[in-house]
């Protein structure tokens, strides 16, 4: 009974989404205040209804209602409560519901914080979001209903995929989706501007905080996924250029470009059509990504037969949303001209180069991800594109970007007089070289030259980012959150590149076969395999090894890698044993029983690896601070809220 109510709630939400879209867009077109007044209630109603639907499904999980097919497929009587809730997004149908709910949440936020925007514009933004919501709800109800029944109900469920029974991976989808879906807001702002036929600096100021906030969530979501892969998948790797990972990385790259392009549009009224295009592109990549991983749209040679009707539906939706926006773009963008100018060494120029590189990077990832599909679709020989191809170009793009940040951050707007920043540039570069080279040769020795450049450039970015804030502080000037946020985020990217460069060059890894009592040595460190004992958990059993790590002969910690077999799905998971020191991780993963008491083990020393994820946290923190800057909060200026004929007046 209750699951059917949940289903019904979604149907009602679909109707409200339609109302939101129709009244929002057409009401704005007609400048009809009564019609437009339907929109915010529709948004609120949709949120309530979808929340109800989510609540029903969560209840079904928590109460072990195996008569619901989705619950039976993703849960089990032995599943701990936390994972029963997380199972909501454990598979396709539920994760779609999550997507739709997060969209409703963002739209609610837009509805709440848009009262200072012109009525027709706000109405259009929410109208566009209504269209997106409508499409997703239709898809959910039509092909992926999470409330479908399984009758007769089985005695027990098939359990949640053990891969997902982990705290980090449990919260990774909600955070990631918050990022993905957040770009819909930027997309909606872009479409609204195109429909209004007006895009100016004020528009950019409105759009920036939403975009930055979405970007923050996406950054954290990606970092969580990477961290999880590191400690859970057993190889000690953190990025595999896997289609699933690339699907989240591409919107992030374009989103970064979008944030920077918005800055130029806000400041100088330039790059308007580029900003529009980036806003459309970021959301398009979000859509493409969300679907690549679930619909069979990415038909790699190793995906199995997908449900073609789902794939077609998604494709049709993609074509409507993206094609529609691009048609609007081709119509409106030619009118967005500006007469502003800037020098080749001005800040605008650096941001332009920056964005070109970011888009190029996203394109490289896109090509690598879609190439097998393209070859298959065009009847050419099947190919694979793996890490080797991506690393043949991506690192160089990243280094180029870093160089631009380190130099461009000193550039002034409009007339970037290089002379003015010469001192800062020289000090920055000198500091970077000294620190970078000292660290490299002092701590690690010469590795790959790319890593050396990465460490130097990363340091250069960090040092360069500090000049302005310190200068402002000394001159007793204001230090707005936007500046602090930008500084922290840029420091974050510097830290990230330093960490990645270090890990890639200086990781020490050995795959060995050991018996209890035996030791493997790596430089100053040694791992001694002590013993192996059985272990049991709430819904699994397995073995647990104990290894003592020695440094210069003295024990410093004990590691406990495990190998678990989950009862219901009979699948085996490895839990790595990791100890994080301030400058490296000590890693061990348990392999298999080789007989005669010997076990295969992977041991690694991973220098600075935790700083990769710390860097992502810094970037998110910086973005969050910047988005909360005072100048984005409600400001009532006469010219920004043109009078709209009130509800009392009939408008035809």
């Amino acid at each position, binding site marked *: 009974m209750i699951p059917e109510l949940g289903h019904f709630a979604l149907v009602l939400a679909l109707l409200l989404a339609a109302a939101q879209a129709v009244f929002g867009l057409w009401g704005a077109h007609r400048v009809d205040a009564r019609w437009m007044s339907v929109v915010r209630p529709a948004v609120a109603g949709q949120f309530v209804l979808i929340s109800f639907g989510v609540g029903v499904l969560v209840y079904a999980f928590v109460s072990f209602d195996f008569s619901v097919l989705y619950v039976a497929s993703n849960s089990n009587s032995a599943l701990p409560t936390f994972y029963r809730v997380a199972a909501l997004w454990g598979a396709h149908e539920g994760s779609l519901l999550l997507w739709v709910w997060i969209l409703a949440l963002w739209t609610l936020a837009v509805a709440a914080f848009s009262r200072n925007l012109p009525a027709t514009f706000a109405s259009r933004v929410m109208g566009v979001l209504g269209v997106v919501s409508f499409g997703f709800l239709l898809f959910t109800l039509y092909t992926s209903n999470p409330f479908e029944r399984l009758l007769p109900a089985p005695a027990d469920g098939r359990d949640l995929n053990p891969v997902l029974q982990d705290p980090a991976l449990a919260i990774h989808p909600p955070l990631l989706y918050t990022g993905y879906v957040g770009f819909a807001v930027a997309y909606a702002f872009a479409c609204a501007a195109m429909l209004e036929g007006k895009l100016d600096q004020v528009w950019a100021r409105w759009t920036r905080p939403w975009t930055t906030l979405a970007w923050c969530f996406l950054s954290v979501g990606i970092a969580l996924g990477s961290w999880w892969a590191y400690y859970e998948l057993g190889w000690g790797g953190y990025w595999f250029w896997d289609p699933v990972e690339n699907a989240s990385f591409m919107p992030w790259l374009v989103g970064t470009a979008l944030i920077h392009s918005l800055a130029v549009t806000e400041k100088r009224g330039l790059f308007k059509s580029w900003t529009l295009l980036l806003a459309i592109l970021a959301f398009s990549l979000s859509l493409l990504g969300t679907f690549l991983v679930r619909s069979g749209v990415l038909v790699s040679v190793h995906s199995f037969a997908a449900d073609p009707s789902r794939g077609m539906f998604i494709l049709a939706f993609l074509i409507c949303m993206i094609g529609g926006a691009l048609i609007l773009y*081709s119509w409106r963008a030619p009118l967005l001209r500006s007469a502003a100018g800037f020098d080749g060494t001005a800040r605008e120029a650096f941001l332009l180069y920056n964005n070109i590189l970011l888009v190029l990077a996203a394109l490289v990832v896109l090509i690598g991800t879609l190439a097998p599909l393209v070859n298959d679709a065009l009847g050419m020989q099947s190919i694979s594109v793996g890490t080797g191809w991506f690393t043949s170009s991506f690192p160089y793009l990243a280094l180029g970007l870093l160089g631009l940040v380190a130099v461009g951050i000193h550039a002034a707007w409009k007339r970037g007089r290089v002379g003015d920043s010469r001192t800062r540039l020289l000090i920055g570069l000198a500091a970077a070289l000294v620190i970078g080279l000292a660290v490299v040769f002092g701590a690690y020795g010469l590795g790959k030259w790319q890593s050396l450049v990465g460490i130097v450039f990363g340091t250069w970015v960090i040092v360069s980012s500090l000049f302005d804030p310190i200068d402002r502080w000394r001159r007793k000037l204001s230090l707005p959150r936007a500046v602090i946020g930008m500084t922290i985020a840029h420091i974050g990217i510097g830290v990230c590149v330093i960490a990645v460069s270090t890990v890639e060059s200086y990781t020490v890894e050995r795959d060995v076969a050991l018996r209890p009592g035996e030791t493997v040595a790596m430089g100053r460190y040694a791992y001694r395999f002590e013993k192996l004992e059985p272990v049991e958990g709430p819904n699994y059993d397995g073995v647990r090894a104990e290894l003592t790590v020695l440094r210069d002969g003295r024990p410093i910690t004990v590691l406990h890698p495990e190998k678990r077999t989950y009862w219901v799905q009979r699948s085996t998971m490895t839990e790595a044993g990791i100890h994080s020191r301030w400058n490296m991780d000590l890693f061990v993963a348990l392999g298999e029983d080789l007989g005669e008491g010997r076990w295969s083990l992977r041991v690694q020393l991973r220098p600075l690896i935790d700083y990769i994820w710390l860097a992502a946290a810094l970037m998110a923190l910086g973005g969050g601070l910047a988005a909360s800057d005072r100048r984005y909060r409600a400001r009532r200026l006469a010219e920004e809220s043109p009078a709209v004929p009130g509800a009392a007046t009939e408008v035809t």
Partner: protein
Amino acid sequence: MNRFIVPLVVFLGLAGVLYIGVRHSPDKSIMASALLGKPAPSFELPVLGEARKLSSRELAGKPWVLNVWGTWCAGCREEHPALLAIARQNLVTLVGLSWKDEDAAAQQWLTQLGNPYSVVAVDREGRTAIDFGVYGAPETFLIDERGLVQYRHVGAMTLEAWEREFVPRLKRGGLP
């Protein structure tokens, strides 16, 4: 207007590719063998249940079908009735390749479920299977009278796939 239409055009191109990709997806479980049109790898393997060896040379001059299977493979169990029906048609020699399996288990399987194969070669270590570019069981190859690989079916064999893909190719070779 002209350059602003470029993104739309590019997108439509991409959409076209995605469309073809989605359309293909039901058939995409079949991956074209890299050996199509090329000579089948030669082998010399023990025969299941007999003391002799089977050399690929003995199969030359006539088309033959190789079915890679194992008692551990669920899809093989599924396709077994179809294989028996295909064997009864007597169109072509059906050679089984027992892949990474135990002889005793394989024997018992054939005794219990019926033996569609004219002869079963035993590839206990999987070397021959690798030579054929096998990546999972079951897989079924059609090799023509010149010894060239004409087709590979991936997954459980069905009578429908047999009629659609194997029989026309056999007939083209001028066989009864």
